[in-house]
C-alpha cells in the first residue's frame, strides 16, 4: 500500500531535474562568508565605477591652499567635500581612491580574462593532444614558470616605458601559466569519457571536440580558479605600483595610493594610508571568500 501512495505522489508531481548549476548555486548561497564576499564585491564595483559621480572634486585638481597644511585642513569631512581627505599634494583622496580601485579591479579582471582564454585553450589542447605535443607545451610552461616574472616584468616596464598598457600586457603574459596546468589536468580526466569517444567515433575534428566538448566541461574549474586569480593579479599590480614603476601620475592605483600614504603617515595624515588600505584589503578578502565559496560549490573533489 505504502509503495502505491509513493508512486501516486511521484506521478502527481512531475520530477523537476536539478541542474549542476542550480545545485552549485544553492551550495554557494548557503555559504555565508561567500555571500558576504559577493555583496562586498558588488559594493566595491559600484564604488569603483560610479563613485566618481559623488566626488566633489576632479581627481587631478590640486588645491594649492592645502599643500603643507594637510594635517589640519585636509582632514576627511563631509562639509568640505573631501570625504576621504586630501593627499599630499592637496588632491581629493576620494576621487583618487575611486580611480585606484577601478584600475586595480581592471588589472585583476584583464589578468583573469587572459588566463581564462589563453590558459584554458592551451591546457585543453595540450591535454587533449597528449604525447609529444603535450610534453613540449607543458615543459615550456614549466620553464616559463620558473622565471622570476616580477623581475622580468619590471625589466619590461623599464625598457618599454612605464605605462598602464605595458602593465596590462605584462600581467596578461604571466597570468595564464597556472590556469593552463589546471585545465590540462582536468582535460586528461575528461578526454577518456564516453561522450568524447562518441565524438571521435562520429568523426568530429579534434579542434571542434576541444571547443565543443572539452572546454565547456572545464567551465566550473576555470571559474573557480579565475576568481582566485584576480586577487593575485591585483597584488602583482599593486606591488609594482607601490615601487612607483607601474601606473603613472596623474593616474593611480591602490598600490600607488598605499605607497603614497605610507610615505606620509608620520605627518599625522593617517587617512591617506588607511582609506586605500581598507579598499585593498576588502577587495582581496571579497575575492578570496567568493573564490572559496565557488570552489566548495563547483569543485566536486572537495565535497
Amino acid at each position, binding site marked *: 500500500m505504502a509503495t502505491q501512495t509513493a508512486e501516486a505522489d511521484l506521478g502527481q508531481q512531475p520530477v523537476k531535474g536539478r541542474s549542476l548549476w542550480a545545485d552549485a548555486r544553492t551550495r554557494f548561497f548557503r555559504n555565508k562568508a561567500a555571500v558576504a564576499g559577493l555583496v562586498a564585491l558588488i559594493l566595491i564595483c559600484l564604488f569603483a565605477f560610479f563613485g566618481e559621480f559623488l566626488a566633489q572634486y576632479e581627481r587631478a585638481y590640486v588645491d594649492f591652499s592645502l599643500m603643507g597644511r594637510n594635517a589640519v585642513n585636509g582632514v576627511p569631512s563631509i562639509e568640505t567635500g573631501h570625504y576621504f581627505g586630501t593627499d599630499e599634494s592637496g588632491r581629493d583622496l576620494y576621487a583618487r581612491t575611486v580611480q585606484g580601485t577601478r584600475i586595480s579591479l581592471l588589472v585583476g579582471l584583464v589578468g583573469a580574462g587572459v588566463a581564462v582564454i589563453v590558459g584554458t585553450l592551451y591546457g585543453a589542447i595540450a591535454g587533449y593532444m597528449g604525447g609529444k605535443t603535450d610534453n613540449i607545451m607543458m615543459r615550456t610552461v*614549466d620553464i616559463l614558470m620558473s*622565471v622570476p616574472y616580477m623581475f622580468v616584468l619590471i625589466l619590461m616596464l*623599464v625598457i618599454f616605458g612605464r605605462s598602464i598598457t605595458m602593465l596590462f600586457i605584462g600581467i596578461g603574459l604571466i597570468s595564464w601559466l597556472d590556469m593552463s596546468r589546471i585545465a590540462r589536468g582536468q582535460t586528461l580526466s575528461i578526454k577518456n569519457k564516453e561522450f568524447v569517444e562518441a565524438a571521435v567515433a562520429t568523426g568530429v575534428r579534434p579542434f571542434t571536440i576541444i571547443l565543443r566538448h572539452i572546454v565547456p566541461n572545464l567551465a566550473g574549474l576555470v571559474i573557480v580558479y579565475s576568481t582566485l586569480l584576480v586577487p593575485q593579479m591585483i597584488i602583482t599590480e599593486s606591488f609594482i605600483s607601490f*615601487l612607483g614603476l607601474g601606473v603613472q601620475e596623474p593616474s593611480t592605483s591602490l598600490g600607488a595610493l598605499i605607497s603614497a600614504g605610507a610615505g606620509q603617515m608620520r605627518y599625522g595624515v*593617517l587617512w591617506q594610508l588607511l582609506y586605500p588600505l581598507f579598499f585593498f584589503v576588502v577587495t582581496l578578502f571579497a575575492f578570496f571568500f567568493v573564490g572559496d565559496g565557488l570552489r566548495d560549490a563547483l569543485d566536486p573533489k572537495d565535497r
Partner: protein
Amino acid sequence: MLSYVLRRIAVAIPTILLLIVISFVLMFAAPGGPFNGERALPAQVMQNLEARYGLDQPYWKQMADYVWNVVVHFDFGPSFQYRDRTVNDVIAQGFPVTLTYGFWSFVVAVIAGVSLGVTAAIRHNSAVDYTAVGISIGAQVLPNFVMAPILVLIFTLWLGWLPGGGWQGGQWNYLVLPVIALSTSYMASISRITRSSMLEVLNAGFIRTAKAKGLPMRRIILRHALKPAMLPVLSYLGPAFVGMITGSVIIDVYFSTGGIGQFFVNSAFNRDYSVIMGITILVGVLTVTFNLVVDLLYAWIDPKIRY
C-alpha cells in the same frame, strides 16, 4: 635516481638560457640605447661609448660574450650609469644584506608556520585551531607591501620600540620588522598547508596503529606523523623562495636596507640595463637552483616518487 637528477638539470639549464635570451631580446627591442639621454651626445662620443661597452658588436656576439663572461668569469659587466662601478660590485654590496634577512625570514616562516599548522591540526576544532585558520586567512590579504607600513606605524610611530628603516650592519633590532613583513604571508601559507596535510596524516591507519600500541602522543607526532605531513610543505618551499626574493625588493625600498632590491629599483628608474639584467639573471639562477634542490630533496624523501 641519477637519471632523474640529470633530467632535472637538463630542464634547469634551458630555463636560465631562456631568461638570458628574454632579457637580451627585450633590451635590443628597446627604443633607444642606454646612452640616449635628454641631450643628444656628439656622434664621436656615442661611438666611443658604444665601443667601450661593446654595444657596436652584432647582437649575437654581445649575447655570447655576456653568457661567456657570466659563466666563466662570474662577471656581469660594467654598470651603464656609474663608470666606477660594475654589476659585480653592486651584487657584492647588496646581496649579503638580502641574504641575511631573507634567510631569517625563511627560517621564521618555516618554523612558525609548521608549528602553528601542527598545533592547529592536533587541537582540531579548538580555539587554537580557529585562531591559526584566522591568522592564515588574514595574512592572505596582507602582502609584504601592506605589512611593512602597518608594522612601521605600530612599532615605530606609536610604540617607538623598533627603528623603521636602515640596516646598521644587520643589528637585530633593524632586522625584526623586515623579517616579520617579509615572512608573514608565507608563514600563513605554510601553516595552512601543514594543517591540512597533518589532519590527513593523523587519520591514516599507521597513526591508529601507533596509538593502539600505546605510544605517547608526542612520539607519534614527532616520529611518525611529521615526516609524511611535511611533503606538501616541502613542495611549497620553491614558490615561497621566489616570493621572498621578489618581496625583498619591497623590503629594500621601504626599509632602506640596502639589499639588491634597492639597487634593482634605482636602476629601473635610471634605465641602468646592465644592473637590472645582472640582478634578474642572478635571481633567476638562484630560483632555478633552489627549485632543483627542493625537487631532488623531495624525490629523496618521498619513496613514492618514481624517477
